[in-house]
């Protein structure tokens, strides 16, 4: 996509709703900004620089070459210079230089350093919540600077002084208190599972189970809770897949969420939410752990489970495994009987969720599945797929009403790429993408549907 004309500050007035006491306190965050907030924020800043060597490296290695500038979907969609990754990072670096470099301490503004003022904090809250932590910029940076890491650090520092979005904190609170982001209680989870069993019976005539809290099952499947609310076909897809190969599996009502909004706020919550999955696997005495169709869930589970909550000796490798890896393995081994023609009549393309393609190395498996179950499968242009994929516009904690303008702007490059395919069905294994694209298509006047990879696989499975 061509770089847009520069529109300074055009996105400056789009903000997330701020979390109040009732969402901050349960997460152990200050209910309001403390009087000595600057000192506290700088302490946190220092701590993160110390703990995360990559972060301190990113502070110093950027040469401002500008290679990342026109790679960010939110810059391409808005033209706001502060949404160029290098400029976004600069909002953070100028504070870094002021307090953590000799030149900045001495020369201040002359050394392009700036005090951490109320205005700077407001700017942080605006622009670090117009970054979806998609990491596309990092793919193009000759020095490997990952602005998403900077965004994560800025958000963590803000959270430590009680500056956080309502959306993320509310969702984390539900994950902690109820076990999933949507806040679906145990009885409703069971009721929904039973309902889907009936649906499966009607569709296939078979008794396909949707097991809940079944001790001693072989596999614990942790889906995003959105699958048990909005993406019924994906949820039924898992069940049909396990049924087809005779694998005994279960969901857990303690860990009924694969998504991990800790990634969007701070490491403490990331660890805590991830811990539930490990505890559920142990308590249910399963042998294997499989993660459902969710991008950031996969990043959190794959990159952090073993380091934050391991070791996972009690589970069989590969651990965790993504449902697309599992399914692709079965297809390769010839374990599934498939009828591609079940998906005839539609043209399908694939959207790589950022956290699968860039954050989790999961690029070929979903394609393997789609090629095995769809006759008319087409790719979007090469510079917009695989590790160069464009964000759906709703990742990284942005999937909330008040950020709709940001979300639609950020989706623009993706929609342009989608249009070139002529597809009428977009398959993507991520709950956030699945929720975001229907809004995007409506906004841009695109006549297409959005489905999961499991949805199409399940249609083609012959049982």
């Amino acid at each position: 996509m061509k770089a847009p004309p520069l529109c300074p500050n055009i996105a400056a007035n789009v903000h997330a709703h701020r979390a109040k006491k009732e969402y901050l306190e349960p997460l152990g965050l200050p209910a309001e900004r403390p009087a000595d907030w600057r000192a506290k924020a700088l302490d946190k800043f220092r701590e993160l620089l110390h703990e995360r060597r990559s972060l301190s490296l990113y502070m110093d290695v950027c040469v401002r070459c500008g290679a990342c500038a026109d790679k960010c979907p939110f810059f391409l969609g808005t033209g706001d210079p502060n949404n160029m990754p290098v400029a976004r990072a600069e909002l953070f670096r100028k504070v870094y230089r002021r307090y953590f470099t000799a030149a900045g301490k001495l020369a201040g503004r002359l050394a392009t350093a700036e005090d951490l003022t109320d205005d700077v904090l407001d700017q942080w809250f605006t622009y670090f919540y117009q970054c979806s932590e998609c990491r596309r910029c990092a793919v193009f940076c000759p020095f490997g600077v990952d602005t998403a890491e900077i965004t994560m650090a800025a958000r963590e520092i803000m959270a430590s002084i009680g500056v956080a979005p309502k959306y993320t904190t509310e969702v984390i609170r539900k994950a902690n208190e109820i076990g999933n982001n949507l806040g679906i209680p145990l009885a409703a989870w069971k009721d929904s599972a039973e309902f889907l069993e009936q649906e499966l019976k009607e569709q296939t005539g078979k008794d396909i189970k949707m097991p809940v809290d079944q001790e001693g099952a072989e596999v614990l499947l942790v889906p995003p809770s959105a699958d048990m609310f909005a993406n019924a076909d994906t949820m039924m897809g898992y069940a049909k897949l396990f049924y087809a190969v005779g694998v005994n599996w279960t969901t857990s009502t303690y860990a009924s969420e694969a998504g991990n909004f800790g990634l969007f706020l701070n490491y403490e919550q990331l660890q805590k939410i991830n811990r539930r999955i490990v505890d559920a696997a142990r308590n249910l005495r399963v042998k294997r752990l499989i993660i459902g169709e969710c991008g950031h869930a996969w990043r959190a589970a794959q990159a952090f489970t073993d380091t934050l909550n391991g070791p996972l000796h009690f589970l069989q490798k590969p651990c965790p495994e993504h449902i697309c890896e599992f399914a692709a393995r079965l297809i390769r081994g010839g374990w599934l009987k498939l009828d591609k023609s079940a998906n005839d009549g539609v043209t399908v393309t694939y959207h790589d969720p950022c956290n699968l393609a860039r954050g989790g190395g999961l690029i070929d498996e979903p394609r393997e599945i789609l090629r095995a179950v769809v006759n008319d499968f087409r790719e979007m242009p090469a510079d917009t797929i695989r590790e160069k994929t464009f964000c759906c516009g709703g990742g990284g904690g942005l999937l909330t009403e008040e950020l709709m303008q940001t979300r639609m702007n950020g989706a623009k490059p993706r929609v342009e790429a989608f249009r070139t395919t002529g597809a009428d069905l977009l398959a993507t294994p991520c709950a956030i993408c699945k929720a975001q694209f229907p809004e995007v298509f409506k906004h841009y006047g695109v006549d297409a549907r959005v489905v999961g990879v499991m949805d199409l696989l399940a249609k083609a499975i012959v049982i």
Partner: protein
Amino acid sequence: MPTLTLAGKEFDVDEDGFIQDATKWDDSIATALAEQEGIKVLTDEHWKVIRYLRDYFQKFGSAPMIRKVTKDTGLPLKRIYELFPTGPAKGACKLAGLPKPTGCI
């Protein structure tokens, strides 16, 4: 917290206009909220969805799975979007006085 006057009574609402205390809901609230959602008249079909959501919420403490709403009310999803332009999880839940479903939806 913002407040909203509906059918002559004051309610605490969230930033998106969802009433905060589901127990204070009655039919007149749904009618008053309908206008905000761009719905002119609440028809029998609207009420069918609203009552279904209410009952489910009272029984299970959350909004029902969307597929279940369409199945149990007999109204296809397309029709539900015609009735409630912002959809079953937003507009319909708002009118039924349920908390706003948030998460990856």
